[in-house]
């Protein structure tokens, strides 16, 4: 793709983003995606890059509370915004209800889809504290998992939201 036309010299710019409540000032080019910046510049590798195409959902973070695919979000668009990643879910040693429920229900196998799943679910439960199964599926249709077959993930959401008397299956 090396073109004959003169390439514009695009300068980096400074953006300020807050990640899990911590402010970061970073230098980025417009072409840098949020997932690259989180993983490389800020060093938080919990957010995964599964497809770079905006399909698998492994890169899901919350941008000002909204579930967002970091692989197709430009970092420059996040200037002044608040990003929540999986690293911010626990309070010290205390897991959030959904993290604990994932452990209790066997909803984690290889774990690669897990960060994205947890972020999508965190946003769902913020908006809807007792989602029905169809609502859970709608919220997670953009988070692919190849290991679990999804049943345990649904059970984890139900446990975390105190529904249907779903008890932990793991101790």
């Amino acid at each position, binding site marked *: *793709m090396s073109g004959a036309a003169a*390439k*514009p010299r*695009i300068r980096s710019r400074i953006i300020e983003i807050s990640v899990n409540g911590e402010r970061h000032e970073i230098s980025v*080019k*417009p*072409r840098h*995606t949020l997932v*690259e910046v989180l993983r490389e510049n800020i060093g938080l590798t919990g957010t995964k890059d599964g497809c*770079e*195409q*905006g*399909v698998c*959902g492994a890169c*899901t973070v919350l941008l000002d509370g*909204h*579930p*967002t*695919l970091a692989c*197709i*979000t*430009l970092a*420059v*668009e996040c200037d002044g915004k608040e990003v929540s990643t999986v690293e911010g879910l626990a309070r010290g040693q205390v897991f959030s209800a959904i993290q604990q429920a994932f452990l209790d229900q066997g909803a984690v196998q290889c774990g690669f889809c897990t960060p994205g799943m947890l972020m*999508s679910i965190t946003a769902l439960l913020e908006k809807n504290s007792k989602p029905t199964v169809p609502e859970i*599926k*709608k*919220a*997670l*249709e*953009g*988070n*692919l998992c190849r290991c679990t077959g999804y049943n345990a993930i649904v059970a984890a959401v139900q446990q975390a939201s105190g529904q249907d008397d779903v008890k932990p299956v793991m101790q």
Partner: protein
Amino acid sequence: MIDFDFDHERPGTLAEAAKLLDRHGSGGRIMAGGTDLLPNMRVNILQPTTLISLSEIKAEAPKRDAAGTIRIDALTRLAAIADSALIKKNLPLLAESARVVGSNQIREMGTLGGNLCQETRCLYLNQRHDYQFVAPCFKRGGTCCYPFPQNKPDTCWSVYMSDVAPALIALDAEIETVGKSGVRRIAIVDLFTGSGLTPLSLDHDEIVSAVIVPPQPKDAGFGYHKSARRGGLEFAMAVMAARLRIAADRKTCTDVRIAIGAVRERPVRLLAAERVLAGAALDDASIAAAVTAALEELKPLPHHGFTKSYIVDNVRVYLRRVLKSAGGDKSGGVDLA
């Protein structure tokens, strides 16, 4: 990763954005949610020199005036449309169509205007061409067409796949645009050229600013179905929307609108099918005749691994169910949520 550099500007108003588009010429490109644009940039279908981001511009909430006309800002996120009480109540067809777009994340990021202005798609097009399909196709400015080698350079059969457009056609919606010459309105069907090469009729400096939906006929019924292999995430094999009203005599159809998307270079209003039903009684026979007329008038393109014959078979069944649903029969399982 995007492997080329580009500039990025964030104007405060649409008018400013239009000016920037004009100034940057063919190298300038609007970005709203970016859910269509960025994946296309990643595979080098589009290589703008300057992205003009609309993210500083706040979308106004959908509003309904005294006459019942509803105005929806083009920058409204699809999730907000799907969840809007106003839209669910007055335009359930639009709410449903927004609800089935992509995934939850795509709906949270993507906008109404962006969805309508999406690029057409084709399996051969939507890939990086590092080692597959290396010679660019017509749509990429090259000299061939991979899926239809007999096509001439002016013919590209990539399909337009918006889930929302057919619903807006069925609702008689208009598009408002802002450009260097000012504001204009067009019927939604006029947004589309029918050419896979340049699917939209907008001037380069024009930006879709709003969708305006007229008040719907009283007691109108709606039907909608997105045919897809999986229950979510993907684009449609075919997406159908219909509106009709049964007159006071309890049998005659009026205000019939039938539209289908994802099967041609633009969403198609099925006029011949509408004519079959307009003024006729709605029953199994008239519905079947309308579906037959629709399939005769529409020549669906095979796309994304689906054959033409199966698309026809699928549409034949679901269009029937959609029309029945619009007529009040909810048994076909194509109810609006």
